[in-house]
């Protein structure tokens, strides 16, 4: 058990290091923060001074080592725009992002899973075909198109809901819907195929032959087995609680982590970008780890060896 966890943690750390390294290199090679943050017509001496102050003239590997050394001290760097610690900037945006992604997750689970189960139980019925059609539409349409469409209809034409900003709970409705619809669609399709697979298994027939009523067989025998593959997708959705709203936050001018990331990348605000990426990688990796452990709980076959080793 310890060995298992240890290995997973080591892999998780490696993932995070790789993510940050990648960002490090790409950001530095693709633009000059000095020019982007100080406007292009600032005096050359100011730009040079900026570069010197932030160590941008040093060779890349030196900057890299300095950065990682600082992490071990707990210092994730400062924003080049206003000098504030990157961690602070990011932390103050997290509640805003969660205010969107948590309700969206609830929506994905609350709509997607029941829809998928219903479709599987009534295979080839009108309800099944309708759910599948809607699901395909839901995850094919890109989120920004969906968001803009919703804005067009509900904010511009009907005037029911505001189109941007974060003033009241009403401002959250459209972004949450945009986020939730795509995820619910994916989950519906996935749950449906997991359920169909399980419903066709011999142990379902055994349960019925035992005299278990159909509804109970579905609840007690089918669902627990269908949950196993479904957990993978849900885990992924939980892992993207922080990073999954980048596009939506931009479309709706929602002041969350995603929006901060977009601005920071545009400005090559290195420390902020790296800090966000570290955070996102950590969230995703933890979610995956939790899913792996959850598999062990849901599927007893993973916990102990099978009885026969046939030759």
């Amino acid at each position, binding site marked *: 058990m310890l060995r298992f966890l240890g290995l997973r943690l080591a892999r998780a750390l490696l993932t995070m290091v790789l993510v940050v390294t990648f960002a490090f290199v790409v950001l530095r090679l693709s633009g000059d923060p000095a020019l982007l943050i100080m406007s292009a017509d600032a005096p050359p001496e100011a730009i040079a001074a900026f570069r010197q102050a932030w160590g941008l003239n040093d060779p890349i590997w030196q900057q890299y080592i300095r950065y990682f050394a600082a992490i071990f001290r707990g210092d994730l760097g400062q924003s080049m725009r206003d000098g504030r610690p990157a961690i602070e900037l990011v932390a103050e945006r997290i509640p805003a992002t969660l205010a969107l992604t948590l309700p969206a997750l609830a929506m994905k689970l609350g709509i997607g899973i029941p829809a998928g189960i219903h479709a599987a139980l009534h295979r080839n019925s009108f309800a099944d075909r309708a759910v599948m059609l809607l699901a395909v539409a839901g995850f094919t349409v890109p989120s920004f198109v969906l968001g803009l469409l919703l804005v067009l209809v509900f904010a511009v034409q009907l005037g029911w809901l505001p189109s941007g900003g974060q003033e009241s709970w009403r401002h959250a409705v459209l972004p949450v819907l945009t986020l939730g619809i795509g995820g619910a669609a994916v989950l519906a399709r996935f749950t449906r195929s997991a359920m169909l697979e399980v419903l066709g298994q011999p*142990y379902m027939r055994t349960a*019925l*032959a035992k005299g278990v*009523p*159909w509804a109970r067989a579905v609840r007690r025998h089918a669902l627990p087995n269908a949950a196993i593959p479904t957990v993978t997708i849900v885990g992924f959705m939980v892992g993207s609680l922080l990073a999954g709203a980048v596009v939506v936050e931009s479309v709706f001018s929602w002041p969350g982590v995603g929006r901060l990331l977009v601005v920071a990348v545009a400005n090559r605000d290195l420390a902020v970008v790296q800090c966000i990426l570290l955070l996102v990688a950590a969230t995703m990796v933890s979610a995956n780890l939790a899913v792996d452990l959850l598999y062990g709980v849901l599927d007893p076959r993973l916990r102990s060896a099978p009885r026969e080793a046939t030759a």
Partner: protein
Amino acid sequence: MPPLVEIAGLTATFDGVPALRGVDLSVGRGEAVALVGESGCGKSVTWLAALGLLPGKARVAGSVRLDGQEILNAPPATLDALRGGRVAMIFQDPASSLNPVHRIGRQITEALALHRGLRGAAAREEARRLLDRVGMPDSRRRLDAYPHELSGGQNQRVMIAMALAGSPELLVADEPTTALDVTIQAQILELLAEIRRDTGMALVLISHDLGVVAETCERVCVMYAGRIVEETAAADLFAAPAHPYAAGLLAALPPIDGPRRPLAAIPGGVPEPWAMPPGCPYAPRCPRRVAACDEAVPRLATVAPAHRAACIRPLPEGAARELLSA
């Protein structure tokens, strides 16, 4: 005394393709009947249809009476009470026929709760007693085991224990030993015989293995292409089969002793359900075929006392022996 189960004219169709074309079968109280045939003949479908276990898109018609009461297409509540209660069914691959995420104790107590109203500690104790009854060593610990932790033979014992939970009057065993090793097969068949002796339970044994059914059952029904083509006592079938298909099956078995020669294989294959020949479905492969065989499907007719065959030219008693030793 009316038979325990009486099936008459049972038909089953999937998307317009018939799988059962009129099956007549009866099982007496405490009797052991075998249903033998090759893949696709409908032997499993017959009992799945009788118990309402076929998927919804199947169209089932005919009559199935349990103790005189019609149960075909009965309302779900009736069937739920009946299945696992008066009539229990066990299946071929025990490893995949048990729910992998439930402990076996729970799977047995579920049946006990449904049919004997037992719960909690009483149910657990009864489940343990059932596991002992089916010869599972270390029954108390095994209650908490998962199916994948047990062997194929042990899983089949669990299935039998689950089936016995409702004290059934009839156990339908669908190829119960096919997926098991030969020595384990012997154990399971022995167990079924023992249970029958103790409880007087009737048994329907579905199998493709003629030898297995010969040792366990009193009466054998041979199926081909969705119909019963021969029905008689087990000893009579093996000594003097009347239907050419049954004779052909017996002749195709590799002999245990005697000179070695090419096996008397039946030529050709089973016709596809959507491409049935007119008249007798076995005619294209039958060495005794005549023109009249293609005209109409033969009905099951008596050829000897308690011996019926669906053939217009059944084998007379001596002839079969010739065929077998040819």
